[in-house]
């Protein structure tokens, strides 16, 4: 599947495209062959051997990991998965850096734009963002290579498409589409005036809200300047009105009660627990009565130690050090602490729009402001 062209989408030379294709094939081989193979090795060889020796099942993630670490399949598959992760960003980054002047220029606000963009060069970048390059993506989401820089936005937009071998759709928006559809289906009477996407990145989780609720004003905020500048240019070239600004979602400059829907998608698992709590608290302040905040997360922890080992793969191998805390967060308490009523907490699941047989259902958790 090819990524939908828009004015900002980087283009590739022959050999760059060939390297992209290789990384996609490699990622696909890891996701569909090597990763599931770990379960085969565990169930068919490692676990029976453990049971025969100890007379009981492996009980902890540590036991499962130590057991698997003895398998060359496990060790080899993991280093290939890690290699794919590093190769992805280096391959895409080289191509984008070559044409960055063009992308920066195309992203700039122009007369007649449908939406707006605000950068804030004085925004203090939180330490947890600056200290860890999430996904081993060098520079993370926020590093500025120049004034008006869009590098990290272009890198993530193009990189995610290669990473998912197109599995999130031609616009990378499968998860955002699913989240917006869940809200629309669950609250058919909701007529939001304004919608906020916290941690919007290149905007592929933001624009689906405008498509689901065309009458609403849609806002996207991100701590990364390159993200919001790229997101603005991308949205304009796709002809979708949205307002992007560079802000820390735990302390925004929007007035109280400004929004009816506040969402985040694939953001909270990259945040330390205190930051997640801060996002919920700010969401409570920003919501109008009857408004809803909704985030991915809240999945029930697997009971099997090996399942827990597999679900922590990105945490262990792709620089997602906060994902363990995200998984153990007491959401009910976090929403109550943020000001929501315990009875107003909502949960849901929805099939991903793409890769239905490969991705687990999206779990959603949130709260309604009463």
């Amino acid at each position: 599947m090819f990524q939908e062209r828009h004015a900002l989408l980087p283009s590739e030379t022959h050999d760059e495209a060939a390297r992209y294709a290789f990384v996609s094939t490699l990622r696909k081989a890891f996701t569909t062959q090597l990763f599931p193979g770990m379960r085969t090795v565990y169930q068919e060889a490692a676990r029976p051997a453990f049971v025969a020796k100890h007379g009981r099942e492996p009980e902890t993630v540590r036991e499962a990991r130590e057991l698997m670490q003895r398998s060359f399949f496990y060790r080899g598959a993991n280093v290939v998965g890690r290699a794919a992760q590093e190769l992805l960003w280096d391959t895409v980054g080289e191509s984008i850096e070559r044409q960055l002047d063009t992308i920066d220029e195309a992203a700039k606000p122009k007369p007649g734009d449908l939406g707006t963009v605000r950068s804030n060069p004085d925004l203090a970048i939180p330490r947890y963002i600056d200290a860890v390059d999430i996904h081993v993506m060098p520079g993370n989401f926020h590093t500025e290579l120049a004034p008006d820089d869009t590098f990290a936005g272009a890198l993530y937009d193009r990189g995610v498409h290669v990473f998912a071998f197109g599995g999130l759709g031609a616009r990378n928006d499968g998860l955002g589409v699913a989240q917006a559809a869940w809200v629309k289906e669950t609250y058919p009477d909701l007529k939001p005036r304004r919608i906020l996407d916290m941690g919007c990145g290149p905007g592929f989780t933001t624009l689906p809200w405008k498509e689901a609720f065309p009458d609403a004003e849609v806002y996207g905020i991100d701590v990364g300047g390159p993200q919001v500048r790229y997101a603005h240019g991308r949205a304009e070239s796709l002809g979708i009105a949205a307002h992007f600004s560079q802000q820390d979602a735990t302390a925004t400059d929007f007035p109280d009660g400004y929004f009816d829907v506040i969402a985040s998608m694939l953001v909270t698992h990259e945040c330390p627990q205190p930051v997640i709590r801060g996002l919920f608290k700010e969401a409570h302040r920003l919501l109008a009565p009857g408004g809803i905040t909704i985030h991915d997360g809240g999945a029930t922890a697997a009971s099997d130690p090996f399942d827990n080992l597999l679900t922590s793969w990105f945490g262990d191998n792709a620089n997602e050090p906060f994902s363990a805390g995200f998984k153990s967060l007491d959401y009910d308490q976090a929403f109550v602490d943020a000001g929501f009523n315990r009875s107003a907490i909502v949960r849901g699941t929805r099939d991903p729009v793409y890769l239905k047989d490969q991705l687990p259902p999206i779990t959603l958790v949130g709260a309604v402001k009463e």
Partner: protein
Amino acid sequence: MDQPDTPPRQPDQVRQPRRRFARGQARPAYLEPGDVDRVMIMLVALMSEVSALRDRVDTHEAVAELGGAITSAAIEAYELTPLRHAVREANREAMLSRVFRVITEGRDAATDTGAAPLAEVVS
């Protein structure tokens, strides 16, 4: 390559093959056990280069099949057809299967049943 006008050597003048190891100090050893992870990552990056090269050769063939001159500009301008894309994808998957065979054999052996125990067939 044989030089046609060189006369054959006499048996007592047969040349020895060149020596292919150096006498003297032992080869320095720099890599440490943990370095093998990095070497593996280099190997995967090199596979990417081999794959890109193969795609470029395939584009040479595609441009030639279309009757065009194989120039750098023609290669950059070539638009990949869905069929050719699918063939390349299958070739990449097959290459990965060959290179990763030593990894996947552990998985495949784990589900291999039915063979007689080795001791039964060796004795």
